[in-house]
């Protein structure tokens, strides 16, 4: 009995020793244990989502400490400028946020990112993400990021009562119907479609292209044998011009443009589904409007059945100071638990197909349903289908078109942009 007790005590002290030495190790490598997560999620909703994911990370991986290296600024303009200088100096954060898809190409070509195929295999991610999503974010068979959320770009927001006054019974299904409706609204004396600053026009362009060309032709525009000079593209761009001719005065950004719809000044607005939070959230961050009565939505004209997606994702930079910590973070970001914690707060849906449906209500429930059944097409403005150089060139072309309204010149500029993109 006594011997047992002694040996038990010995064992205990041994294990205590082990624990102790572990602790000193962790103390010695305190700097290495920090996981620097670089993102641009600082706004309301998104920062809360990040916090929720951080809490799960802290619970699952107590050996690592989360370091929030977020840089403020919508859509990550400032953050990306800082990030690109950090990567060039070979001082990467442990993991950084980027739009999934072509936006990461510059980093991939520059050899700044590690392929994540090993992680996809280990976690069997290829079976939980939609196959088309994996296809659209793969570069030569390699996946370089873990999508955390999905946003939808092709949403037509509208004000039901303005539509009623204009004599429109339901949201337009095709681009032609849409143009006819815009005309009815104009005759009723309201702004047919509200627009914001230049990038919101690129956003409108991607929905118009998709709605006019159809999903397959749209997706083909981003492949090697794309034909930007075709008559179909001319037709789509002419539609774009017609739609723009019904636009109100450009607003400062997307929020004031969306607000015109909520306030009943304008009938339609095409904007991503982040507008839902703006419409619906209580004042102080949102407009506090009731969904389906004060505002309503439909897939943008001609795009029903197709999900024009964009996604925030996390990466693994080569030479990450704490590679294990970064991989741990990616595992949380890829997990059902992590995505279900993040997305309801951020107002987006998980990229995974097996999300807990009860967490997503109202718009998000509809959205999640569409995500699981729709065909997929990638967004231009939000970094999925075109790399940075191409996207910037498209932005320039749209900015110039806004001034001169010359379709032929616009199409040439877009064709040149595709040719010179180096993608």
């Amino acid at each position, binding site marked *: 009995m006594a011997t047992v007790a002694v040996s038990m005590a010995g064992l205990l002290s041994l294990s205590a020793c082990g624990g102790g030495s572990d602790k000193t190790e962790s103390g010695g490598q305190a700097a290495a244990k920090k996981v620097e997560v670089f993102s641009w999620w600082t706004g309301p909703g998104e920062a809360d989502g990040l916090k929720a994911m951080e809490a799960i990370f802290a619970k699952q991986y107590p050996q690592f400490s989360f370091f929030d290296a977020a840089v403020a600024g919508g859509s990550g303009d400032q953050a*990306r400028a800082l990030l690109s200088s950090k990567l060039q100096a070979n001082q990467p954060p442990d993991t950084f946020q980027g739009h999934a898809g072509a936006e990461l190409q510059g980093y991939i070509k520059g050899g700044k990112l590690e392929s994540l195929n090993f992680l996809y295999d280990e976690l069997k991610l290829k079976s939980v993400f939609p196959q088309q999503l994996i296809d659209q974010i793969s570069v030569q068979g390699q996946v370089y990021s873990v999508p955390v959320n999905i946003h939808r770009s092709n949403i037509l927001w509208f004000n039901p009562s303005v539509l009623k006054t204009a004599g429109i019974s339901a949201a337009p299904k095709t681009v032609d119907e849409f143009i006819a409706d815009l005309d009815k609204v104009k005759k009723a004396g309201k702004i047919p479609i509200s627009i914001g*600053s*230049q990038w919101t026009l690129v956003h409108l362009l991607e929905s118009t292209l998709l709605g006019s060309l159809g999903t397959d032709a749209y997706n083909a525009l981003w492949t090697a044998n794309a034909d930007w000079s075709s008559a179909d593209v001319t037709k789509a761009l002419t539609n774009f011009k017609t739609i723009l001719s019904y636009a109100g*005065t450009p607003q400062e950004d997307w929020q004031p443009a969306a607000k015109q719809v909520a306030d009943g*000044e304008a009938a339609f607005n095409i904007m991503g589904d982040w507008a839902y939070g703006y419409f619906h959230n209580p004042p102080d961050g949102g407009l506090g409007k009731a969904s389906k009565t004060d505002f309503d939505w439909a897939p943008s004209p001609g795009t029903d059945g197709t999900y024009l997606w964009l996604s925030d994702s996390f990466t693994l930079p080569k030479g990450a100071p704490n590679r294990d910590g970064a991989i741990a973070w990616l595992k949380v970001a890829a997990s059902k638990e992590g995505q279900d914690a993040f997305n309801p707060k951020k107002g987006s849906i998980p990229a995974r197909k097996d999300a807990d449906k009860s967490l997503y209500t109202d718009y998000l429930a509809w959205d999640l349903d569409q995500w699981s059944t729709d065909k997929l097409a990638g967004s231009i403005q939000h970094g999925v289908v075109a790399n*940075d150089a191409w*996207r*910037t060139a498209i932005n320039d072309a749209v900015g*110039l078109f806004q001034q001169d309204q010359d379709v032929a010149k616009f199409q040439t500029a877009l064709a040149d942009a595709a040719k010179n993109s*180096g993608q």
Partner: protein
Amino acid sequence: MRRWWPGLLLVSPSIVAIAVFVYGLLGWNFKVAMTDQHDEISQGHFVGLENFTGIWDQERWGISVRHAVVFTVVFVVGALVLGWFLAFLMEKGIRGEGGFRAIYLFPMAVSFIATGVVWRWLMNSGTGERAVGLNRLLPDFLQWHWFRDPGWGMAAMAVPAIWQMSGYVMALFLAGFRGVPEELRESARVDGCTEWQVYRHIVLPYLRPVTLAALIILGHISLKVFDLIVAVSGKQIITDVPAIFMWNAVFDSHDPAKGATIAAYIVISVCVFVVPYLIWNARRRDGR
């Protein structure tokens, strides 16, 4: 020998710093501008002045240069005239001059970003029933789209800059006015000059160096303008200027050579303002 070295020792840190961080980096910029490094990864090769000539074929560059010229002319002339006028009023010796001077100078203490955020709202493009900001104060026929006006939007963009800098110009001119010896004015008056002639022939010639200094200061601010425009309208073609285009080229389309070329043009355009002034200044000093 022994007399100059402590002085040299004292200034040498700043000489070294300026040599590296100003002229060294300027040189590096020109070097990148003369390569074909059109992405961040590849090694550029020397292509001479190809980028400098090629950029003129881009429509956007023409637009941004035109915008910069319109902005510069309206801003510099506007700030000079308004600043001169304010100084002229102050010089008359009004009561509470110190208070007014502080009020007019205050905008200088605000950053262009803060100015831009406020003026973005003031220059809201809504008209008629939807008017907010300044349009609300104006009668209908005077309301316009401000910086969103395709023709003269950049003139509107100069308004906040004039608001911000005219107080500073006023301070310069006020110092200039005060520098005119009272005896000169008096003797002119004794000789039968009207007050207008005193200004025309005595005071204004005295103000010439001040005017030139103000012109240089405003001119170089104007050609480099970036923060104000980003704060007011962001990066849009409708208010594009070379500095915005440069940011776009470097950080959005990841084209270092193009960005460096635009940066080089900005430096050159500022030099066009500054170098003649330096030469003129040096000559004047020699002349004395």
